[in-house]
C-alpha cells in the first residue's frame, strides 16, 4: 500500500488494527476455548464423582459437551448479532456527524458517499481528493470501527468464558447433562430445518412486493388476461416507443404448449421404460440401464439447448420442407421435444420407484390366478402405483415449466399466441430472462414485470407440487 499524506497514514493504521482481531481469528480462538471447555467439563465431572463415577447421571463426555456448547453457542449468537447490526449503527452515527449539506442529499447520493468512505477505509483508490469534511468523516468512521472491533473481541471472549464457567459450576453427579445436551442438539436441528422454510418465505415475499409494485403500474387484470405481450416501454422521457403491453396470456400459452409437447414425449417413453426396467428386464440390464437413463438428468440444460437449436430444429425444418410444411427455425416443437427428452428420467425414475414399491405379494396373487404379465401390470401394478406415477408426472411438468435454457435457444423470443407447434413461441421463463438482462432501471414496469411473471410461475409450480404431494400421501396410506 502506498501511503500518501496524513489522512491515508492514519487510515491504514486503523485498517491494520482492524485486521488483527478479524472475525476468523475470533472464531479460531473460540474453537480452541470450546475444545478446552469440553475437556474441562469432562474432567470436572470425573473429579466431582471421584471413585463413585458410576453414580454420575450421564457419561462424562456429556458433561464435556454441555460445557462446550455453553461456551460456543452464546458467543456465536453474540457475534452474529453484532456483525449484523454493527455496520448499520456505525453508518448512522457517521451520517449523523456529517455536515448538514450532506444530510440534505437524497438517499442514493448519500449511499454513494458512504461507499466512498468505506473504500477509503479499506485502502482502495477513490476518484477525487477528499475535502476536509469528508476526511473527518473517514477518520470518524475508522475510529468507530476500531472501537467496535475491540469491544467485540472483549465482549465475545468474556461471553465465551462466562458461559463455560457457568456450565462448569453446574456440573454435579446428579446433574442431567445428557438430557440438556440432547435438548440443545434438538434445538439446533429445529433451527436448521426452519432456515430453509424462512428462506423460501423470504424469496416469496420479495417477489411478492416487487409484483405489487408492478401491479400498481399495470392493472392486474390486464396482466392476467391481456393477449398481447410487448414489454418495450420508453426509458427516457423523449424516447419514441410504445408504452408497452403486458398481457401474460401468450407467455403462459407458450409455456403450456411446450410443456404439453414435452410431456407427450416424456410420459409414454418414461413410463414404458420404467415398466420394462422394473417388470421385464434382467437385473443386470437394469443395473446398467437405470443409471444411464438418470444421466440424462445430469446433462446441463444449456447442452440440451444447443442440441435443440443446432441439431433438432434444423432437422425439423428439413423434414417440414419435405412435407411441404413451413417450420420456423425456432419452433415450439424443437424445444418441446428436447425438453421431453430431458425430463424422461424424472418420469421414469419416479415411476420405477413406485412400481417397485408395489408389493411382490400382489404380483404373485395376480399371476397365481393365471393372469399374464401384461394383465398383471395393467390391472394390478399400474393401478396400485398410479398415484405415485401421477405425482412423478406432475413433478416433471413443474420441471418443464421452470426450464429456461432450452427454450431460450430453441423456441425463440416472439410472443406469438398460437397452438401451432411449428411456430416460434416464447415462455414465461424466457421473458423473465430477457426482461432482466442488459442495463435496466429497476423500477420501470418492464423490469418489475419479471417479478410478476416469476410470482405467477411460482404459484403454478407450487400448486402442481402440492397436488403431487397430496397424491403421494394418499398413495402411501393405501399400503400402511
Amino acid at each position, binding site marked *: 500500500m502506498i501511503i500518501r499524506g496524513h489522512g491515508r497514514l492514519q487510515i491504514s493504521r486503523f485498517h491494520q488494527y482492524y485486521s488483527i482481531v478479524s472475525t476468523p481469528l475470533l472464531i479460531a480462538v473460540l474453537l480452541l476455548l470450546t475444545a478446552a471447555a469440553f475437556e474441562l467439563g469432562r474432567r470436572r465431572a470425573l473429579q466431582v464423582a471421584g471413585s463413585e463415577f458410576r453414580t454420575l447421571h450421564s457419561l462424562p463426555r456429556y458433561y464435556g459437551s454441555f460445557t462446550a456448547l455453553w461456551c460456543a453457542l452464546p458467543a456465536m449468537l453474540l457475534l452474529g448479532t453484532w456483525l449484523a447490526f454493527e455496520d448499520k449503527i456505525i453508518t448512522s452515527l457517521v451520517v449523523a456527524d456529517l455536515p448538514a449539506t450532506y444530510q440534505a442529499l437524497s438517499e442514493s447520493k448519500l449511499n454513494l458517499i458512504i461507499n466512498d468512505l468505506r473504500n477509503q477505509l479499506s485502502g482502495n483508490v477513490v476518484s477525487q481528493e477528499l475535502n476536509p469534511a469528508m476526511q473527518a468523516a473517514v477518520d470518524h468512521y475508522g475510529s468507530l470501527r476500531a472501537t467496535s472491533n475491540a469491544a467485540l473481541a472483549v465482549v465475545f471472549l468474556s461471553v465465551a468464558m462466562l458461559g463455560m464457567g457457568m456450565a462448569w459450576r453446574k456440573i454435579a453427579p446428579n446433574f442431567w447433562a445428557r438430557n440438556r445436551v440432547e435438548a440443545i442438539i434438538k434445538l439446533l436441528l429445529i433451527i436448521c430445518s426452519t432456515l430453509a422454510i424462512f428462506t423460501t418465505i423470504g424469496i416469496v415475499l420479495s417477489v411478492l412486493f416487487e409484483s405489487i409494485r408492478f401491479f400498481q403500474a399495470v392493472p392486474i387484470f390486464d396482466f392476467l388476461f391481456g393477449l398481447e405481450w410487448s414489454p418495450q416501454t420508453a426509458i427516457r422521457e423523449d424516447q419514441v416507443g410504445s408504452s408497452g403491453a403486458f398481457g401474460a396470456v401468450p407467455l403462459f400459452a407458450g409455456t403450456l404448449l411446450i410443456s404439453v409437447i414435452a410431456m407427450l414425449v416424456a410420459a409414454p417413453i418414461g413410463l414404458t421404460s420404467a415398466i420394462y426396467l422394473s417388470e421385464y428386464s434382467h437385473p443386470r440390464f437394469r443395473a446398467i440401464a437405470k443409471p444411464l437413463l438418470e444421466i440424462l438428468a445430469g446433462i446441463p440444460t444449456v447442452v440440451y439447448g444447443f442440441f435443440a437449436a443446432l441439431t433438432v430444429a434444423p432437422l425439423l425444418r428439413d423434414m417440414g420442407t419435405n412435407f411441404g410444411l413451413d417450420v420456423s427455425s425456432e419452433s415450439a416443437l424443437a424445444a418441446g421435444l428436447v425438453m421431453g427428452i430431458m425430463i424422461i428420467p424424472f418420469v421414469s425414475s419416479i415411476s420405477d420407484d413406485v412400481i417397485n414399491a408395489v408389493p411382490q405379494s400382489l404380483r404373485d396373487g395376480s399371476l*397365481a390366478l393365471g393372469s399374464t404379465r401384461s394383465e398383471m401390470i395393467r390391472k394390478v401394478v399400474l393401478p396400485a402405483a398410479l398415484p405415485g406415477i401421477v405425482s412423478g408426472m406432475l413433478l416433471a411438468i413443474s420441471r418443464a415449466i421452470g426450464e429456461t435454457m432450452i427454450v431460450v435457444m430453441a423456441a425463440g423470443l416472439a410472443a406469438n399466441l398460437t397452438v401451432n407447434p411449428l411456430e416460434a413461441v416464447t415462455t414465461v421463463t424466457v421473458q423473465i430472462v430477457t426482461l432482466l438482462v442488459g442495463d435496466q432501471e429497476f423500477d420501470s414496469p418492464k423490469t418489475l414485470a419479471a417479478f410478476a411473471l416469476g410470482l405467477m410461475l411460482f404459484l403454478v409450480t407450487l400448486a402442481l407440487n402440492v397436488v403431487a404431494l397430496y397424491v403421494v400421501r394418499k398413495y402411501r396410506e393405501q399400503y400402511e
Partner: protein
Amino acid sequence: MLNQKPAVRLENPAKTNDVSPPSPVQNREFDSKTVGCVTVDKPIMTTRNVDVYYGGKQAIINVSIDIAYNEVLSMIGPSGCGKSTFLRCLNRMNDTIESAHVTGKIELEGHDIYDKKTDVVTLRARVGMVFQKPNPFPKSVYENVAYGPRIHGLARNHTELDEIVQTSLLRAGLWDEVKDRLSQPGTGLSGGQQQRLCIARCIAVNPDVILMDEPCSALDPIATARIEELMDELRQNYSIVIVTHSMQQAARVSQRTAYFHLGDLIEVGETSNIFTNPQDKLTEDYLTGRFG
C-alpha cells in the same frame, strides 16, 4: 386340454360326493426312497423325481408324490425343508424366481405342466394358490373376486359375473359378512376376512387344485377354524394341498400327510396313520417334538 380356458368344469368320474380316503399303492415303477403311500389310484396330479435348485443349491431332492381327487393333502416339516418350494412347483410359480430351476416330471391329469406346449396362464387358472399372508388387491371386494373371471373371460355379461362373485363368496363363507360392502376396498377387511376373500378370488376361476401355503399362520383361532371348515367343504369339489406348521391342523383337515425333511420327502401316509404310527425315525422325531 391344458391349453383351454377353464370355461366349463369337466365332470370327473372321481368327483362325486364319495370322499373316502384314496387307497395307497405300494409297488412303484420309479426310483423313490419315500416311505408310505406315495401314489394313489386315480391321481389328479402326479410328480415324479422332482428336483429343484436355487442357483447351485438344491432345495428339493427327488420328490415323487400323487395328489388325489377330492383330497386334502397336508405337507409338514421343519422350516426351510422345501415345502413352499415344492408347492410352488405345482403351479409353476417358481418361474417368477430367476434362480429357480426345476427338473423331473409333474403332470396335471396326464399332461406335463413343464412341457413347452403348456400355457402357464391356463395352468395357473387350473391350479390356484392361496398365500401365507392375505394379499387382496387394492380394489373393491367385488373387483377382487371378479378379477380372475374377467381375465379368463368366464362370464358373458354382468349378471353372470355377479353370479360367479356371489357363489365364490358364498363358498368361501364370506358372503354374509361382505354382501353390503362389495364396493368397499378389499384391503379394509379383517385379516381372516381378507384370507377368505383370497380363497374366494381363487375359487372364482374354478380351479381343479388349490394350493395353500400356511393360509392360517396370520390368523386367530376362530378365523382359522372357519377356514378349516371351509377346506372340508371345498374338498367336495377341489383337491387341496396345504402347507402347515400346525400338526393339529394337518390332523384336522387332511386325509393324507407328507413329511419333508431338508428337501427330501421322507414319508407319506394317511393322516390318521402317520400321526399315530409313523414308519420313519425322522417323522417320528418330528411328530414327537424331538426335532424342529
